[in-house]
């Protein structure tokens, strides 16, 4: 009898109210994911085989035509290449700047840590559209702050050599704070005794960083890399506000191309085919990242 009571009290699911709560939460999540992810993804996949414009109720089966057109569209591949390059540079910059600033804030020498943490995180929580409009003015070739500061006469948004750099600068400035906060959190959770032992053994700051901090932070860095890649593969707001993919097609990113096909040309079937290719690429990259990190852990 005693044993029965003990085993009942140990099993959290034996309580009726907890079972109801569990079932409700799980069912809600399933419904949420069904309604907002799986069903729309399924519809989009089916739509990619159609001439599809929901605004005029058009949904005509066209077989593999959209897929054929996408795969033979040079601009799509060019935009994918741009997206890949953009993502790699943005992720690298985010990690490097994030690590540098997080290490600085982690140091005992820096005072007012909360102030700096807030300051660095502010751009991250500012709406991208608003930020992009402010930066658009900063990039103005005549009145822009950037040219005034640098003493240059660059037409940042219309010169093919600088337009992508302009979008990257804005993105990096906007997002580095996220990496700082996450990495700083990671640093605070590291075992302090390792650092104390290293200090006693005479390791300097640089050796401690590369020998202890960085290896122990690998899961955090990997988390930032994966979430950043997923996020940067979907970048379109700065492109929409700053360049609309121009000059010409120099700053075309895959998601902007998809947005343009769907919401400017109302070619939802074609846009869906593009989305699926991008979706598969992101899934593949994520899987590769997990696999690589798993091997390292072993």
């Amino acid at each position, binding site marked *: 009898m005693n044993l029965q009571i003990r085993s009942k009290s140990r099993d959290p699911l034996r309580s009726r109210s907890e079972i109801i709560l569990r079932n409700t939460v799980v069912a809600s999540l399933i419904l949420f994911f069904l309604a907002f992810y799986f069903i729309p993804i399924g519809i989009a996949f089916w739509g990619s085989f159609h*001439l599809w*414009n*929901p*605004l*005029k*109720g058009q949904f005509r089966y*066209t077989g593999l035509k959209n897929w054929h*057109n996408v795969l033979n569209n040079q*601009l799509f591949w060019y935009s994918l290449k741009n997206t890949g390059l953009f993502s790699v540079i943005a992720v690298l910059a985010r990690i490097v700047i994030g690590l540098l600033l997080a290490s600085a804030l982690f140091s005992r020498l820096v005072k007012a840590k909360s102030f700096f943490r807030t300051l660095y995180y502010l751009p991250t929580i500012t709406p991208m559209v608003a930020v992009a409009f402010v930066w658009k003015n900063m990039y*103005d*070739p*005549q009145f822009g702050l950037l040219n005034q500061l640098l003493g240059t*006469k660059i*037409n940042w*948004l*219309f*010169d*093919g050599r600088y337009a992508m750099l302009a979008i990257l600068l804005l993105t990096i400035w906007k997002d580095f704070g996220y990496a700082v906060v996450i990495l700083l959190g990671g640093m605070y959770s590291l075992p302090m005794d390792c650092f104390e032992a290293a200090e006693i053994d005479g390791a300097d700051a640089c050796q401690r960083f590369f020998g202890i901090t960085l290896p122990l932070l690998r899961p955090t860095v990997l988390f930032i890399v994966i979430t950043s890649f997923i996020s940067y593969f979907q970048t379109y707001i700065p492109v929409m506000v700053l360049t*609309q*993919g*121009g*000059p*010409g*097609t*120099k700053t075309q990113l895959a998601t902007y191309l998809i947005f*343009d096909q769907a*919401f*400017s*040309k*109302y*070619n939802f079937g074609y846009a869906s085919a593009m989305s699926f290719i991008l979706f598969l690429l992101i899934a593949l990259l994520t899987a590769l990242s997990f696999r690589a990190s798993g091997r390292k852990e072993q």
Partner: protein
Amino acid sequence: MKQFTRRAISLVLTLVMALTAISAYGEGSAVIGSTIQYDPSKPVNNGEDIAIEFWYWTGADKLFQAVVDEYTAIHPNVKITLVENPFDDYWTKLPLALQEPNGPAIFNVHNSHHENLIGYLAPYVIPVEDLEADFVGVSAHIIDGKVYYTDYGMMTATMYYNKAMWEKAGLTEADIPTTWDEFREVAKKLTIRDENGNLVQAGFSFNGGAQGDVLGMQYQYGQNLFTADNKVTFNNDAVRSVIQRMKDIYEVDGSGDYNFGNNSGDNFGQGMIAMYLGWGFMHGLFQALWPETEFGSFEIPTPTKDVPYAYHRYNGESTFGINKNAPADQQAVAQDIVRFFLANDALQKQFVLANSVFPAKKTLAADTDIMNVSSIAVLAKHIDRYIWPGPMPSAVENNMKIAIEDIFYNGADIGTALKNAEDTCNMELEGSEFESVEPSYAHASEAK
């Protein structure tokens, strides 16, 4: 006592004013309009109360409020709720709302979204011949003998010039150019550079939006934008000549620079450039945003002194659409509002002036107030020489924009860039129901 008397007098005065206002349209007042007529004494919905929604996009609240106020003053049994949406959102929300029976009964239309809207529109009950008798440009809107919306005004490109810069350069009214060669000479005179050769004032600028200008200037050479089988044609002698001339104005004449401002419209208002080719609505925008910039207008120059096939293309500002899925009683009210709007010269004039468009209503063609707007007045002489290609899908302008930026900013060859844009555009137009109305242009037979 004194206070009571004062109150009584003001009450009586208010009543008299209200009655006067109502009687202007109210029962027994005069029928308005010429061929399309509106009889205010006719009850709507048998005088029974009815409520409808009227959708429009941001920026025109006063205009639509005026329509509603005037209409409900005649028909107090009709309650009209105005629903405003930002322009970009409007085109996704409206077609979806029109799929439902409780969508707006009446709404503002822009012909660039024709393809997404036409399936939801009810035809006007006003006979086509009556519309044609009162308005120009109706023929381009006839579909299977019916009209679903037409134009209340025609908007096109005119050349704006800064009057102070013009005078400072020693130019007079006599110097207003009519050909592109004359224009280039004037642009040179209006250009100012500093001692280091840096541009201080551009004689002319087309930066940031030249696609709208190019897609119209090829008509001056007799070249239509679409082929007989509705394919777009960019890579032809006419478009190549237009773009080469634009390049020469910057690169040979030095009258402007690709990097001297990225938005020539704004830069004109800001006093950076002396001449700017812009559409009608810019007239109001300049007055609102840069009232200190005094400007005039002249008609777009042409390759020779001869009257061209067409000076440029125009785009119509559309009359209201009626939701065919709305309940029958709401549709009847919407039809009545359309008739009221089309018959009402005063309202037509308000809409025309607010958008600086050439009036489509024939009775307003010589209206003094409208002709006082310089950008409209310069069109009057040749208004029949402006062509409407039809409700072009956005792919046309988007692809021309890419071609132009590739040529002007990325150094691409004109022919190659135009061919790429043409091929992409025609691929994107596959499946589109767009049909060019260039063949219905009055001078279509003169096309090359």
